[in-house]
């Protein structure tokens, strides 16, 4: 395809030295007398859909037209009740700004680990809410979080729960899980049947099944272990890797079923 060069003598050559820009500025002046494009921020907010329509009509400009605020990645909201303490948010955080801290569950009154977010470090990438398998950590349209102290930038799970209770528009985007997701596989000879994985599994998708105790050959010593083996229910598993982290023998690993 031939490259169309911009015309060497464009039609916008100066008339009367500066008549064109002066006229353009005057036209813009006349236009903005009705309503300038600026949004008077604390009083007018683009996240308000009604205001968006009004301002677009009043200004005759596509102000805020493109903005879909539901998708906005702002301050997180955490539903403590549905959090399963899977650590995935903390794992996925590229800035390591999420810490899992123990808070009492609203219903059961038992302690459970929930994410605490340091907004001084957070980059609002959304990886944590993408990773959350239960959809309990989502991002909201809230973007005002100035604080006078650094400690105030650390949002405890309770504070994130408060944000949740405000019923702000939540980011509706949920990522589909990849179809060929790796599963937890067991390196069977290493396992000692200690139940640590099943105990700590946040979704209780690991069950310890009995395995037959082999009869030792003469001269062979049976390993000292419990004769059970974990079996992972892949459809319930959220792939958090907690079992791998707690396994004392490092016998669990990621892999695909062949």
């Amino acid at each position, binding site marked *: 395809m031939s490259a169309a060069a911009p015309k060497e003598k464009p039609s916008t050559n100066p008339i009367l030295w500066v008549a064109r820009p*002066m006229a353009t500025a*005057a036209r813009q002046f006349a236009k903005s007398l009705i309503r300038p494009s600026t949004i008077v921020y604390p009083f007018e907010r683009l996240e308000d859909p009604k205001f968006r329509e009004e301002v677009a009509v009043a200004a005759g400009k596509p102000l805020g037209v493109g903005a879909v605020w539901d998708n906005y990645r702002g301050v997180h909201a955490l539903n403590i009740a549905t959090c399963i303490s899977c650590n995935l948010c903390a794992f996925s955080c590229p800035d390591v700004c999420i810490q899992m801290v123990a808070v009492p569950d609203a219903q059961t009154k038992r302690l459970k680990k929930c994410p605490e977010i340091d907004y001084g470090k957070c980059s609002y990438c959304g990886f944590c809410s993408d990773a959350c398998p239960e959809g309990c950590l989502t991002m909201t349209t809230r973007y005002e979080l100035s604080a006078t102290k650094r400690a105030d930038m650390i949002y405890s799970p309770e504070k994130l729960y408060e944000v949740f209770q405000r019923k702000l528009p939540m980011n509706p985007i949920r990522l589909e899980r990849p179809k060929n997701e790796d599963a937890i596989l067991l390196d069977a000879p290493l396992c000692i049947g200690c139940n640590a994985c099943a105990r700590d599994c946040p979704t209780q998708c690991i069950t310890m099944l009995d395995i037959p105790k082999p009869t030792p050959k003469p001269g062979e010593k049976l390993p000292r272990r419990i004769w059970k083996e974990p079996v992972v229910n892949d459809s319930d598993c959220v792939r958090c890797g907690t079992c791998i982290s707690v396994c004392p023998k490092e016998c669990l690993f990621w892999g695909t079923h062949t």
Partner: protein
Amino acid sequence: MTVTLYSVAQSIAQAILGAIASVLPPAGRGVASAPVVTGLAVLLFAAILLVASMLNTIVLIWFERKLLGRFMDRRGAMHVGFAGILQNFADGLKLARKDTVRPREADTLGFWTGPTAYLVTSLILFGILPVSSGWNSGVLPLSLLLALAIFSFAPLFIFVSAWSSNNKYSLMGGMRSAAQMIAYEVPLLLSVVAVVLVSGSFDLTTIVEQQQNYWYGGPLLLALIVFVAAMLAEMERIPFDLPEAEAELVEGWNTEYGGMLFAFFMLSDYVRALVGSYLVVLLFLGGWTMPTWVPSTLTSFPLAGIVWFMIKTYIVFGVFVWVRAALPRVRTDQLLRVGWNRMIPLALLSVVLAAGVVYAKCLPVFGCVPGLGG
């Protein structure tokens, strides 16, 4: 007898001193004697003039901010006071509270006196330029010359403060400023010569009164254009704001200034902008007078002269703002080339045209007027 600013000041002084004298014992009655009254009246006159002019300047800044805002599709100052009219006071307060940092290597005397003298010389102009008949310091037969002479002090003080800042940007800004102002003094004065030729007087009041029926802006259009362009350069406003071209020279000659000294510069710039607009109105747009076909109800209310004068001034300044909103900055060499190669011949031409007007004793469009040419 028309009300003049001095008569107002005199009556106020009279009243104050009279009240004081009435409560004093008889020995102290002398405070209300004529010399004391005159002295206090002069002081009051100066104070009123200063305060009113400063307020006017600050409103002018607000006016520019609002106007420029609309040109730029935004709102300008809007939160402090009605439509942000108090914003400049807030800014001034902020600048007054700030510390003025003097660079270690800077020259103390020049660093402090430069901006102060710049501001003072700019403020003196308010005492010379009449905003209505009688509303200046008195009848000065050469008030136009005096005003222009004081107006051209600026490059000296700018250069003093730029040099004593001991900063390369300041130095370059000061150099540019001096070169530019000197280059544009000439066409400025030449275009004023055209006005003086036609009016036959250096007295601003006389010049204005001669424009009762026709404004010099009409027959002396060329002189008006030259004068406005040269005035833009003298005021260092876009497109001629090279001395403080912030893109390359940070802030030009006031780079090192902060706090109140910067406020002095800022204020003086706008004082000069206001004075420039005053001069345009006085010399070319009829000053405080209005043509006779304007209904007399519109021109005969109290202080009508001042009101009309200010309306004209603000419109002229609005044009300056419009230019600022639409045009980029020119380059130093281009500016000087335009100044020496274009402006001066044009200004000379305008003088010749003015001489022709005087010779013909007629104004082309506005008809012949008795007493033309003094």
